[in-house]
């Protein structure tokens, strides 16, 4: 009987030990006077890390830690969700001169060094930026030595040049507004957009007009029937974001808005088009065909201008996606990343 109890205890201990494999780790990353929240979730033992740079500016890493695509990626690799400087749950005491794209790019570089120091120099790291994260990732690639630390760059609908983005968005608005208004002359939204773009001087787009282009870009997505969307998953994600998320949505909103305002003047004029040639690591560019926020033309330009040999770069379009293909076509999006990571890890 005693032996039997001993076996049961041993069995339970072994079972518990098996479950102790870490799949989630949360910590702060300190760089100067900024403390940034980092969540590492997924298969940490794979020793392959996907460092995700969220959109915005004004977003947070937790917004990306939901849904099918995240689950698929986390099954294979560890995904590093960073709350960038001044956003999400990140904190600090610094002055507003430290809110620049370059400072934030240096944060990303320092974080890759930290990941190598923490998880081993043999770890594979892939940088993955979405939207504004695409600009931040590009800045880190061309302004720091991060390319020596990472295995590849994944750019999903990334905004590496706002002046180009604005011009291309206007072209898309012109094309689609004509098509829609020919069929539905009374369509209010597209009528409003047509009036708005007719007044813009494309050689002199103001900051205010740039802001409106971005707003309309987001707004039109809901009117495009071709874009697929899993309503149930979106509702679940919203629930988790509000009630389970470690980042308070209120704090994230306030700090994110203020940091975004601090960056606004700089990023509205920012263009890395002429520096893309400095990128020579493997690249994967992923774009939604119906992305009015960061039009596909930016994907073409990035693909063409990076110095990476053709064999090591690819540009993939998602036919039923808008600005967030990870939500519109999550399986295909995640599988393309997995194929890329498997090749270069």
């Amino acid at each position, binding site marked *: 009987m005693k032996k039997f109890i001993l076996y049961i205890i041993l069995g339970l201990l072994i079972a518990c030990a098996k479950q102790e494999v870490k799949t989630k780790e*949360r*910590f*702060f*990353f*300190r*760089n100067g006077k*900024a*403390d940034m*929240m980092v969540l590492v979730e997924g298969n940490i033992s794979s020793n392959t890390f996907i460092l995700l740079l969220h959109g915005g500016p004004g977003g947070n890493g937790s917004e990306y830690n939901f849904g099918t695509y995240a689950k698929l990626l986390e099954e294979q690799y560890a995904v590093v969700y960073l709350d960038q*400087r*001044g956003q999400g*749950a*990140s*904190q*600090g*005491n*610094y*002055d*507003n001169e*430290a*809110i620049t794209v370059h400072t934030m790019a240096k944060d990303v570089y*320092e974080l890759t*060094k*930290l990941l*190598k*120091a*923490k998880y081993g120099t043999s770890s594979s790291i892939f940088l993955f930026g979405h939207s504004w994260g695409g600009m931040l990732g590009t800045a880190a690639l061309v302004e720091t030595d991060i390319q020596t630390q990472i295995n590849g760059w994944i750019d999903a609908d990334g905004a590496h040049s706002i002046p180009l983005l604005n011009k291309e968005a206007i072209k898309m608005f012109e094309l689609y507004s004509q098509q829609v208004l020919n069929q539905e002359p009374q369509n209010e939204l597209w009528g409003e957009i047509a009036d708005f773009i007719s007044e813009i001087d494309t050689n002199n787009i103001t900051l205010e007009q740039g802001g409106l282009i971005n707003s309309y870009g987001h707004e039109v997505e809901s009117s495009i029937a071709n874009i697929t969307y899993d309503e149930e998953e979106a509702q679940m994600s919203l629930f988790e974001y509000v009630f389970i998320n*470690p*980042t*308070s949505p*209120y*704090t994230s909103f*306030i*700090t994110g808005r*203020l*940091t975004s305002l*601090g960056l606004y003047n700089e990023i509205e004029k920012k263009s890395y088009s002429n520096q893309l040639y400095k990128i020579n690591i493997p690249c994967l560019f992923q774009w939604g065909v119906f992305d009015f926020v960061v039009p596909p033309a930016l994907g073409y330009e990035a693909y063409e201008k990076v110095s990476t040999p053709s064999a090591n770069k690819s540009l993939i379009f998602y036919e039923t996606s808008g600005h967030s293909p990870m939500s519109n076509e999550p399986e295909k999006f995640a599988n393309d990343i997995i194929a890329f990571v498997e090749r270069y890890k």
Partner: protein
Amino acid sequence: MRFFTVIVFCLPLLIFAQRKPKKTSIRPDTSYHAPAISLSYFGEQIFHPGIRIGYLLHRKSLIKEKSVTYFLKGGQTFLKRKVKSASFLLSLATYGHFQNHIAFAPNAMYIRKTLYNNSIYRAHGFGVGTTTNLYLNATYSVNNQDQLKRNYLAGRSYFTIPLHFELGYDLEKQFQSSAQIFIRMGAQILSGYNAYILPVLHTELGYYFQIP
């Protein structure tokens, strides 16, 4: 419709019409007010729970009494009493974002309070303080040699301006002891938070009792 509207708007004039001129007296309250202790639930945006303990020091108060005799209500004379007081509250609040950080917020506040007929009161306060957020997870950094440095219970401190509005009820009549319950809505404005400010909203539900 117009007639009905006029009646509705004129109703208070009728109800509060006075038979005699009202008498008002204002005098300072010279009685001794013992310091009080406050204990409250301190929720940052309600959901992030915490606790606040405070020490209230009475400064001065003024008693304002009015006697009014209405035409209605049988021509009875009523005594309306208001006690306006000023006090200082020294307090320490703590609340947790349990996946993230725990905060300690000591502050000193000046509070103005108006007590109506020894029952309901309203108050508002403002002051100065600090908030220290201690991270519950480890904090890492890398040095110039790319070596990892790990800190436990690292954190950040911010200068804070606390503000609040309070509604309360005096329990003296019910329990023959000087005690009050209150609900307080407020904000602590953390300055220098990520280069800007962060107004942290809080809700409190608590109890004041005098030190015997």
